[in-house]
């Protein structure tokens, strides 16, 4: 068993995380920008990385930029937007071949780092503004990206349950921004936002691969001249209490209904009882041995999928299932009943043991991909509580039945959302 360890170095304006390993044929570099998600600039933030990856000063068209990336033995380069709790995160990822495995052995890692630095620090800007034509094209693509969420009913209902549940909380904001705000972005306002984010965001740079930390540190420091910053943080433990359960039904022209139920766990990553919450979620709905899978799918044949997952930094437990419209009452009843069983401690020692085994396994498997490692380590940055993987595994294995029940008792149902194909059968 190999448990990966990261080395964290505080450099000017950012933290550098390095993991030295020889199990991959590639080196992976991820730069993450983090700030509290805010209505005022969420849409600027949603378009910014797309503009930065479109072109730079040196590679001033997409064709030139992508041609260069291909020359680097087809490095993968992409950006993505995500949310961890109420943080809005922008990631720049570059995965590049380790030349050791190529017949042509010219060094690639440094070229890759220079390229990433170019994308972040040398954007395609004239006179304090991004290029207008590029911006217009990206605005169109952003609108389409926002609009297309509606078309994927699973994604749509996942977002809708959050809209309803977290109305008036920043967490309800979409990482892709607000469609009505897209037209208000100008080439100047976006450049101003770029500078603000560049100077104020919390920055983490991850490097995983066959590298020597000493070698890369000074090199990275020169290539990524971020300014010193404080970094804005949020209180992740500012929980909203449930007044009454919200029940929302939306009708669309679809065949299969999508049932989503949102619970508040009142526990976040880094809390003492977070481990028990993880086990609880596993017994309840996380896996194919879980209560939801067995009762909603295998026993009652109501669904193909019925599962739960945690939003670890916001304190949510989210259930999703695809069912026939007329089975709404039946499915909701089972899902609620199964949570009641968790609260009463009605689960077997075998269920605890299975869940611990599967979670332990899942954790170790995550460490077999460089992206998995990075996402895992990033939880620590976001929660500002450093938990080593070995410790994480140990704490998880020590969780008792009583602790699981105690965490279950903190959980409150907040919202039942149903996207249905018919109006009847309420």
């Amino acid at each position, binding site marked *: 068993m*190999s448990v990966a360890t990261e080395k964290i170095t505080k450099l000017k304006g950012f933290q550098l995380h390095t993991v030295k390993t*020889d*199990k991959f*044929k*590639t080196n992976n570099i991820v730069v993450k920008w983090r700030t509290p998600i805010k209505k005022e600039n969420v849409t600027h933030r949603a378009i910014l990385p*797309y503009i930065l990856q479109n072109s730079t000063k040196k590679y001033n068209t*997409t*064709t030139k930029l*992508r*041609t260069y*990336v*291909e*020359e*680097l*033995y*087809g490095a*993968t380069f992409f950006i993505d937007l995500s949310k961890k709790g109420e943080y809005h995160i922008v990631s720049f990822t570059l995965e*590049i*071949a*380790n030349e050791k*495995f*190529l017949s042509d052995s010219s060094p690639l890692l440094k070229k890759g780092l220079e390229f990433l630095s170019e994308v972040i620090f040398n954007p395609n800007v004239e006179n304090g503004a991004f290029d207008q*034509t590029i911006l217009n094209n990206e605005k*169109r*693509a952003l609108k*389409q*990206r926002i*609009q*297309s969420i*509606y078309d*994927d*009913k699973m994604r749509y209902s996942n977002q809708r349950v959050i809209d309803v549940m977290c109305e008036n909380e920043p967490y309800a904001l979409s990482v892709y921004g607000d469609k009505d705000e897209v037209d208000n972005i100008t080439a100047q306002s976006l450049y101003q936002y770029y500078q603000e984010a560049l100077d104020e965001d919390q920055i983490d740079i991850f490097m995983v691969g066959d590298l020597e930390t000493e070698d890369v540190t000074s090199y990275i420091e020169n290539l990524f001249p971020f300014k010193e910053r404080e970094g804005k943080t949020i209180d992740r433990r500012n929980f909203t209490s449930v007044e009454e359960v919200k029940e929302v039904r939306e009708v*669309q*022209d679809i*065949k*299969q209904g999508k049932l989503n139920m949102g619970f508040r766990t009142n526990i976040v990553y880094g809390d003492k009882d977070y481990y028990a919450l993880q086990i609880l979620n596993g017994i309840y709905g996380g*896996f*194919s*041995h879980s209560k939801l899978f*067995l009762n909603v799918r*295998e026993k009652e*044949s*109501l*669904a*193909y999928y019925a599962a739960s997952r945690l939003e670890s930094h916001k304190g949510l437990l989210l259930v999703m299932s*695809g069912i*026939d419209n007329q089975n709404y009452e039946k499915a909701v009843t089972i899902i609620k009943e199964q949570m009641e069983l968790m609260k009463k401690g009605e689960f077997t020692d*075998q269920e605890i*043991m*299975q*869940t611990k*085994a*599967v979670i*332990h*396994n899942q954790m*170790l*498997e995550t460490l*077999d*991909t*460089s992206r998995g490692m990075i996402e895992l380590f990033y939880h620590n940055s976001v929660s500002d509580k450093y938990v080593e993987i070995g410790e994480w595994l140990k704490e998880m294995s020590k969780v008792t039945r009583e602790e699981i029940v105690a965490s279950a008792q903190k959980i409150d149902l907040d919202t039942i959302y149903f996207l249905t194909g018919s109006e009847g059968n309420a």
Partner: protein
Amino acid sequence: MEKIPFTQLQEELYYEKLDNGLKVYILPKKGFNKTFCTFTTNYGSIDNHFVPLDGSDYVKVPDGIAHFLEHKLFEKEHGDVFQEFSKNGASANAFTSFTRTAYLFSSTSNVENNLETLINFVQEPYFTEKTVEKEKGIIGQEITMYDDNPDWRLYFGLIENMFVNHPVKIDIAGTIESISHITKDMLYECYHTFYHPSNMLLFIVGPVDPEEYMEKIKANQGKKDYQNHSEVKRKFENEPEHVNKEKQVLKMNVHTSKCLVGIKAIDVNQSGSEMLKNELSINLLLDSLFSESSDNYQNLFQEGLIDDTFSYDYTQEHGFGFAMIGGDTSNPDGLEKAIKEILINAKGSDISEETLERTKKKKIGAFLRSINSPEYIANQFTRYAFNEMDLFDVVPTLESITVDDIKTAANRLIEEDRLTTCQVIPK
């Protein structure tokens, strides 16, 4: 046991064909926590017309039966196999494609037990009328889920357009109607015909000792009494070269339109190195025409015809092949026209030496990235082996491809009456 080294990649593959015909491959991966295993039969949704074991006449079975069988193998008299895997910390799964059904698990401990569980549950079917009926509700929901998914409907709509007779045009899961006819006896008939070890391949990748594992597998198989089995007779009707339908427009509950243009391939009876070269040449051709570094991509983006969902892909198996190009668009007819123009213009024109070299580099880099993934290695190796190709020939074959090869591939692939379009538009 044979040992096949790949020096440049620093990997070694172990292989043995057992007495009952089962092919076993083991690829040790040092430094990895997990072991990933697939147990795959050369049997998929297209194999619906065949001579059953012990039979002499061809039979036709209901659409979706290979996938149904995949679901049902997990259920045993004493319960669900998922439970057994999770007790040993493993996560198990399965999938059915056009040509294969694969059962798999990954785990970081108790690997030997999990491997036994995998082999035994696939080799010990247990079907009853009652459990078969129950599964119809679950698979019915799986089918309904895909019915609401515009990308899936677009993909299958395009395949339907292409083929007149070939069963690839049938949805892998079948329909609610077709699966209603499935009985336990039909499942046993398909099972006994296609799940003989000589029609199957076991692949293990992870931090394992190959000798030890090979012995365990032999011991397991030695205890089971398999009779010799001649190759399964499968029947496919003749498929014309032209497409079945030039265009299909699906109206769905969406806000954004989608458009895919397809090309029906004709060189589909290949196997081995010929197939590998053809497949890679077409992939290089599509990259040179449509990748993000191409002028075409830039133009399509600037004209507002595509966004970052734009993609392209080529699929080839024995008996059928197709390319697909497209994505979300605000102007589905405009995108259709533009893609067709690019394709027609590509026929007969050369790609530059420089573009080819760069695109090859990109593919080689992508291959290295892929072999970080145990899942990719096991799944792809199996697919290649069933088509008599070798996954580890990808890099040398790529390196050998010339500008002329690409030109030949383009000329063979692209033909106006083999193009077809499927669109999804808002209701």
